[in-house]
């Protein structure tokens, strides 16, 4: 028996780490040479955020097999809690990267709590209730933040539903102003932070899927009755996948929120949730690599096409690329072909790890 032969799943996971690291290095070199346009440079952090969003949503939709239509809601929770935390700590912790890390961790925790609050009552039900509840959740979060005012003075944080109710001292500053959203945010996000967050997300999701807990989640997706018959508790593992997914979305949201000097709650609306779902579906349900590539391509592409001379054909090219991505990631015939060309492709064993 060969001892050190890698399982197809771990090989696939390492290829994904490789792709991310190579992409980071190449972009750093391009940045160093000044080869990236301003538009492209401004896309680097949000692309990382959307990759994390897509990979984490894939955990719920592809791996667990439950439909979520409010993933942007968790992103929103993370964004605004991250902004508040970073703002509240700006005099206490002057080291920007440390403040960013704390903001991301808090964003993840708040996102995760949101996941628990929704998951506990809904995931015990059988049927597609999660889709409808997450849809409502996304809208509720958006509307709540639109009437939320948060300010800071020497007494600490003030929360209210209108500016005058904040009751702050004279020199207090409001950071979240209802419909205007967060304003005057110190931009802490960097591309390197985005890269690290993507890598951490990949490690968490891939290691989870390729472990005892991940197998239980996959078992539930494939055949709930059989999974129960071998002693797997349904609610526990559904919650595990859903809450992890929500927490990662919260982390991505915190990074996203700290990338702009102002952010409105409408940024994280139903359309955003659907956009992320499109990344996941086109990238292939359950395929981590597919989510990553689809999110990166489909987020950057429309912007890139805009800057070329061919801009009148922009949407046409976008549509063609959408179809190509779909073919590449979902078509079994094409997969076989690729497997033939690339001899060390993964063997039979599951559509999960990719």
């Amino acid at each position, binding site marked *: 028996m060969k001892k050190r032969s890698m399982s197809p799943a771990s090989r696939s996971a390492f290829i994904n780490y490789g792709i991310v690291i190579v992409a980071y290095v190449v972009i750093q070199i391009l940045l160093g040479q000044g080869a990236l346009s301003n538009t492209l440079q401004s896309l680097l952090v949000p692309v990382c955020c959307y990759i994390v969003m897509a990979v984490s949503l894939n955990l719920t939709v592809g791996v667990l097999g439950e439909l979520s239509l409010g993933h942007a809601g968790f992103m929103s929770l993370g964004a605004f809690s991250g902004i508040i935390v970073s703002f509240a700590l700006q005099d206490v912790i002057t080291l920007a990267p440390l403040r960013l890390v704390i903001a991301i961790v808090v964003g993840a925790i708040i996102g995760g709590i949101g996941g628990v609050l929704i998951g506990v009552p809904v995931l015990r039900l059988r049927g597609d209730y999660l889709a409808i509840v997450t849809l409502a959740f996304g809208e509720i979060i958006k509307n709540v933040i639109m009437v939320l005012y948060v300010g800071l003075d020497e007494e600490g944080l003030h929360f209210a539903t209108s500016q005058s109710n904040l009751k702050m001292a004279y020199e207090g500053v409001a950071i979240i102003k209802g419909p205007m959203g967060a304003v005057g945010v110190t931009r802490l996000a960097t591309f390197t932070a985005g890269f690290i967050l993507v890598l951490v997300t990949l490690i968490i999701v891939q290691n989870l899927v390729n*472990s005892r807990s991940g197998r239980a989640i*996959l078992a539930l997706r494939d055949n709930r009755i059989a999974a129960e*018959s071998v002693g797997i508790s349904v609610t526990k593992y559904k919650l595990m996948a859903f809450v992890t997914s929500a927490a990662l979305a919260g982390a991505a949201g915190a990074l996203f929120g700290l990338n702009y000097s102002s952010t409105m709650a409408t940024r994280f609306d139903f359309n955003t949730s659907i956009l992320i779902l499109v990344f996941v579906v086109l990238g292939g349900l359950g395929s981590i690599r597919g989510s990553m590539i689809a999110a990166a391509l489909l987020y950057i592409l429309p912007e890139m096409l805009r800057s070329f001379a061919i801009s009148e054909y922009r949407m046409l090219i976008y549509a063609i690329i959408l179809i190509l991505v779909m073919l590449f990631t979902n078509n079994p015939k094409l997969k076989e072909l690729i497997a033939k060309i690339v001899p060390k492709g993964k063997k039979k064993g599951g559509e999960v790890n990719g």
Partner: protein
Amino acid sequence: MAKFHFEKGHMVPVPSHSIIPERDLGSAPVLECSHLGIQFGGLKAVDDFNLTIGRTEIAGLIGPNGAGKTTVFNLLTKVYQPTMGTILLNGQDTSGKTTAQINRMGIARTFQNIRLFNNLSVEDNVKIGLHNHNRYSMASGVLRLPSYWKQEKAAHERAMELLSIFHMEDLANHQAGSLPYGAQRRLEIVRALATDPSLLLLDEPAAGMNPSETAELMENIVKIRDTFQIAVMLIEHDMNLVMGICEGICVLNFGRVIAKGTSKEIQENPAVIEAYLGRRKEG
């Protein structure tokens, strides 16, 4: 229909719940159900079902189509909550338990219409059966702590060992859904065994198998009972299999037990003959 209705007088007297009363039941029998029943709307799919199974017994549950055999399995594993009666498993009451808890208490099963994790590998199917026996936490899995490596290695070895019962080690990396029918049925048994049950329920394990596969299956069921020292209850329409390996047989018709006994007693039982012949005349 009235012709097939068994009135009290027609029924074989059942002196004990146990199929073979003289069998050694140990400190507690593996399974003891009394007055078990369930009603779907007006239909009593299973009614007043009493049965005791010894610790290492191979028991058969037979009866015409629609008799309620699968429903009995679904009651024992709490896929359906019984509307009447009690089930004791290794002496413990199972009321209010979920299917997953029942498995942890000691019942594992296969399904009449195969239910594998089709998109996963054969090895992963077995490893999912081992779920409650390699217990490292989610954090150890994500952080790849030593307990992850140790227990994954053990799970791999155990999965291979279990697959070797049916000489299926070479199929470990194949996708479960792509296996031939017979192999899928065998994999279901391996997966059930992985949960380390004290009672194994097999719902038509030989369905779709050719005679030589069935003969091999019979040998393997006995081998499994002998090596794992567990009780087996099987539903089967193949009478050669049932008569060949079942030490006790329970016959259901229209949801009620019409006979219990050894294979010889069952074969000679007039009520059983009538149930089967009656069905043949009708069909």
